[in-house]
């Protein structure tokens, strides 16, 4: 069974490029292409494709909002976010909104196809450029993080400040910082968002935990 797709991207040249990528895949079928958010949303409602490839920034409605709407309306559509940004804060907000993955527009055709196949199967795909270290040694699992660190990481991923985390866990703000530094160190991350993504990738935290 082929994977039915819609593609929403406001830039005609990149849209054409992506379509050309997808046209080569036998198991994929692009059923709709859109240049703005609103018509993309309408197409999703009407066509109910397996996977929606959504650009983050589009006129009318952005990719993250569409993802949220899909989740709210309970549509059987998996959102895969596409963007030329490697800005990590977008990743978390789209994942929180319900996206199952994130691919850079500059990815190769193979990477794109692989990402689509993974999310269509119900998996989670995070682009390698977002969390680079994993690609280098996929087998190396990180040093295990403690339960407390995990708690701190989850709260931080939900967007709480150091102060808020401190008051929630009845610890000092300094301790929160210490925990975060230790988490970064163990996961090999440079910041909060990256550590969150790496934690997802390593299976330290589940996507569902992020969403509640």
């Amino acid at each position, binding site marked *: 069974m082929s994977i039915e797709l819609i593609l929403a991207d406001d*830039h005609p*040249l*990149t849209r*054409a*490029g*992506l379509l*050309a*990528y997808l046209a*080569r895949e036998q198991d994929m079928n692009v059923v709709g292409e859109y240049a703005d958010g609103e018509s993309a949303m309408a197409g999703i409602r009407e066509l109910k494709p397996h996977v929606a490839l959504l650009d983050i*920034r589009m006129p009318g409605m952005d990719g993250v909002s569409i993802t949220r709407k899909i989740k709210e309306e309970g549509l059987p559509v998996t959102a895969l976010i596409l963007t*030329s*940004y490697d800005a990590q804060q977008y990743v978390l907000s789209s994942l929180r909104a319900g996206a199952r993955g994130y691919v850079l*527009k*500059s990815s*190769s*055709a193979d990477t794109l196809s692989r990402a689509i196949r993974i999310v269509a199967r119900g998996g989670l795909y995070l682009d390698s450029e977002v969390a680079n270290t994993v690609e280098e040694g996929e087998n190396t699992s990180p040093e295990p993080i403690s339960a407390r660190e995990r708690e701190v990481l989850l709260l931080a991923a939900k967007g709480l400040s150091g102060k808020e985390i401190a008051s929630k866990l009845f610890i000092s703000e300094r301790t929160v910082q210490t925990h975060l530094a230790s988490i970064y160190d163990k996961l090999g991350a440079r910041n909060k968002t990256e550590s969150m993504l790496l934690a997802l990738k390593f299976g330290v935290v589940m996507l569902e935990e992020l969403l509640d």
Partner: protein
Amino acid sequence: MKDRNRLFCIVLSVLLPPLVILALATTDLVHSRKSLTTLARLYIEHFTEKLAAYIGSDGTFGPDDDAAFYYSFDKCAHGFLTFPGRFPTYFAVFSKEGKFIYGSKKLMNAMNKENPEVPMGHAHEIGGMSDRLTVAKSPAAGGKFLVVGGVAWEDMFGAAAMAFFLWPILTVLAAIWGVVTVWNLFYSVINPINILEHATSTLQWGSETIKLQLPGANPQIIRMRDTLERLSRGACRTIKANRTYVNDLVNVQEDERTKISRDIHDGPLQDVTALIQRLRLARNADNTEEDTKRELDLAEKIAFTTMKEMRALCDFLNPPWLELGLSQALTELTERQSLQYGVKIYLGFDESIETSDNVTLAFFRVVQEAVTNSVHHGEAKNIWIDLKHNQTGGIELTIQDDGHGFDIKDTADLRAEGHRGLSNMEERMSLVGGSLKIISYRGEGTCIRGSLP
């Protein structure tokens, strides 16, 4: 603190001389009075004694050798003697029992009223301030009569006598006057200066204003305070304006960066992404020669598009037609804007206008901003731009649109709400020494007039 003490020292040193003079004068007064009293007493004692010697057993003056004395006496039978070399002197003759026989009624009254126990031969004073008499009595004709002599201080010492009575009052008044004056000086000058000095030295210029109540202070000091108040308010305003200005500059810079970043993202970056995609597609192993050629052709087209967009971005950032002069630059700008926004722009200008680079840039940016505003906020369809000399030989730029206008608020308010367009235009004009006027009513379009003298 030392300086403040100095003010007190000055007050004290102002107060000191009058106090010293007062003390000395009082001592002097006491001494003078003593000697005057002594003088009057000596005189009257001597006079009375001498007069008594002339009184015969009948109580009248017997014949004697002192012709001058007689003479005077005859003239002044009423008991008041005036003669050369002596003070005008009263006298009266009483019986042994103290009954008035003849002489000065004044002395009779005085003796009756006061009824003093005057010891024989010893003078003393009776009467009040204005009618003080020094009197003495002496027995005459072997104790048969009593002669009383009196000299009025007023006659003997004249105005000096009055001064002695007034002196204590004057002294007290002078003392009170002095204290009041010094207090007044302190209250209306020294103290306000101290308060003002303290307020000024502890004031944080630019973040505080002086607000002082100085009741009773001298008008000059009040004016000084008012001036300081104004200055401190001015300093606050200046600092605030500077902060706002710097803030604006930073915000404008940030906005510009965001805009440029977005422009690059939406334009060239997307193009280059598409270019990469095409090159990858061209390299595909399954391609026929025709496929590869098609992808490469597409890639070339995309590369051209990228170049065009980059060029447009460069033109936007630093328009090269600015170098062609104001009229050319405006023609170029309005043609582009007309195409970009789909509005009609009617540009009219006086060909003879020549401007410096700064002025050209200012007018150029004002037009750019004004047209953008007309389209975005006013939804104008037609815009008339006119550049001409005004009556005074300056340059006047008018931009009129048929958009739906707006309620003019203070540009400071608009700026506070994040709309810096209008204040940016104002600043552009004022930087080159000009001014900007905005006329707009809801539903009637907007007219922006920039003038340069």
